[in-house]
């Protein structure tokens, strides 16, 4: 009798659902999953459609005769233009990689003391960072421009890269994640004679790899999709997203090429997320805000 009760207690208990409820939930998830996924599937299909399929009536969702013509056209089109496509890609890559790597380095350097030590101003600085999560960048757009022009950074890549290095969400997530590093580990390193910088670099950083990837997945799409905003006006400094705008402004004749660029813009962040998903979820588990 007792054994039986214990057995029923020990069994991993899961509250069961009736078949109908499960079925309704399945339908619900499938319907919304389709709502989320179809535009992206459509974007992928579009990039491989020949011109006649792009303009067929009534419009077709899936591609019938997939072709890579659009990508060749894209290369040909941009090869003939004043600024070659490779230039836009290089610019975007440069901005994205420097911005992302720099952000991870600076945010983790700032997060380590905030997560592990109490010192004068540490609480205040962190609460300012949390507060800045509560308003968007639009609030500071105008003074930002003034600061930029005062620094002489207008029309340089620095105007996009440098502000993105101090993106507050990155510091917040990094700090929350670092809090779970055991203090014993840091003390052991200290006893072994490591200084703070050494501890940061060789003890803390290798332990927060999931958080690196999370910061990357948040920062990367932002910079990858950046169109240069109000800061960049020289054609040779502009980004891929800006080029997409110009191509699609070409209208109907450029529809295929536009679809190809859209795929190019979209596929990179999504691939990165697929690679890093489990790490990102691990970091997000510590993302909570304390009251």
């Amino acid at each position, binding site marked *: 009798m007792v054994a039986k009760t214990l057995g029923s207690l020990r069994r991993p208990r899961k509250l069961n659902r009736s078949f109908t409820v499960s079925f309704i939930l399945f339908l619900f998830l499938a319907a919304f999953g389709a709502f989320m996924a179809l535009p992206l599937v459509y974007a992928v299909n579009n990039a491989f459609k020949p011109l006649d399929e792009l303009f067929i009536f009534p419009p077709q969702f899936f591609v019938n005769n997939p072709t890579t013509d659009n990508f060749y056209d894209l290369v040909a089109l941009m090869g003939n233009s004043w600024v070659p496509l490779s230039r836009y890609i290089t610019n975007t890559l440069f901005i994205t990689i420097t911005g992302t790597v720099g952000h991870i380095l600076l945010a983790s350097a700032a997060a380590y003391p905030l997560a592990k030590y109490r010192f004068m101003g540490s609480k205040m600085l962190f609460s300012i960072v949390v507060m800045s999560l509560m308003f968007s960048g639009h609030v500071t*757009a105008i003074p930002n421009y003034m600061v930029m022009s005062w620094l002489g950074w207008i029309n340089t890549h620095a105007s996009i890269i440098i502000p993105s290095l101090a993106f*507050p*969400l990155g510091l917040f997530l990094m700090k929350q994640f670092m809090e779970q590093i055991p203090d014993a580990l840091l003390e052991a390193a200290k006893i072994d004679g490591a200084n703070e910088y050494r501890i940061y670099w060789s003890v803390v950083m290798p332990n927060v790899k999931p958080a690196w990837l999370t910061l990357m997945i948040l920062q990367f799409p932002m910079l990858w999709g950046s169109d240069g905003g109000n800061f960049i006006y020289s054609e040779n400094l502009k980004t891929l997203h800006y080029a997409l705008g110009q191509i699609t402004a070409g209208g109907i004749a450029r529809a295929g090429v536009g679809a190809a660029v859209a795929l190019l813009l979209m596929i990179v962040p999504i691939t990165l997320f697929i690679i890093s998903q489990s790490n990102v979820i691990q970091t997000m588990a510590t993302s909570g805000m304390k009251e």
Partner: protein
Amino acid sequence: MQTETTSQVLTSLIHPKKQSRLSYIWKELKRNKHYYVLMSPYMLIFFLFTVIPVILSIVLSFTYFNMLEFPRFVGWQNYSRLFLGDDVFMIALRNTFMFAVISGPVSYFACFLFAWIINELSPKIRAFMTLVFYAPSISGNVFFIWLIVFSGDRYGYLNGFLIKYGFILDPIQWLTNEKYILTIIIIVQLWLSLGTSFLAFIAGLQTIDKSLIEAGAIDGIRNRWQELWFITLPSMRPQLMFGAVMQITASFAVADISIALAGFPSVNYAGHTIVTHLMDYGTIRYEMGYASAIATVLFCIMLGANKLTQNLLRKVGE
């Protein structure tokens, strides 16, 4: 004499204390100097591009400033003009609140609901569904696809579909008709809104202590709703707070989607928001003082909404 000694004692007490306090601060700073050095690059940039601009924006909102002349102090004039004399701002304010009140809570609950359902699937399917729901928010500016869906001619998917099945005879101008603009922007905004907070919720659900659920079962929790309210939600309250901040801030900042779908300015300002109003005065009319007043109002609204929601969320599961 008594007083003399007392005052002497007092000064001798106060004076060294003052000194020791300063030296204490100095010592503290010196002792922790490595931490300040580690934080300095980030904090320098953060203050330069976030904190100082906020302060500057508040200061500028009390001036007349056109980027050429030195700012001239005008007191509350910008604010009185904003709230009493600017009809378009009132439209922007109404639209922004419409977006925020609908897309904010809906996206928040959607994030949680989908995370909750997805959490019960097997790991492989869970990873796939997470990708499906999260992908739109990182796929950059692919929301232009919706331009094709809502296109005003017969090639638009929605028009094509409705005409094919006989719901309408002539194509509807979805994006230039005031009646539809707001709804369409909200739909697209919702499509894009399962972002960081969605991931935070999934992570939060996966890390809930299993023993809590078992203990709850012994304590008489009978169905999933009770489990949700008494165990799941309270244990992930920190994530709920974090998610709320992300969703609220995003829902008040709608602008890019409105501009991409409905144009700038949109027909009769039907898709006009506080942010597009800010862009109008900041980047087109160059009335920087007035634009700063708009930015300050936006700042107060966002901060206020966040604080209010946090107070509400503290009551979850109580």
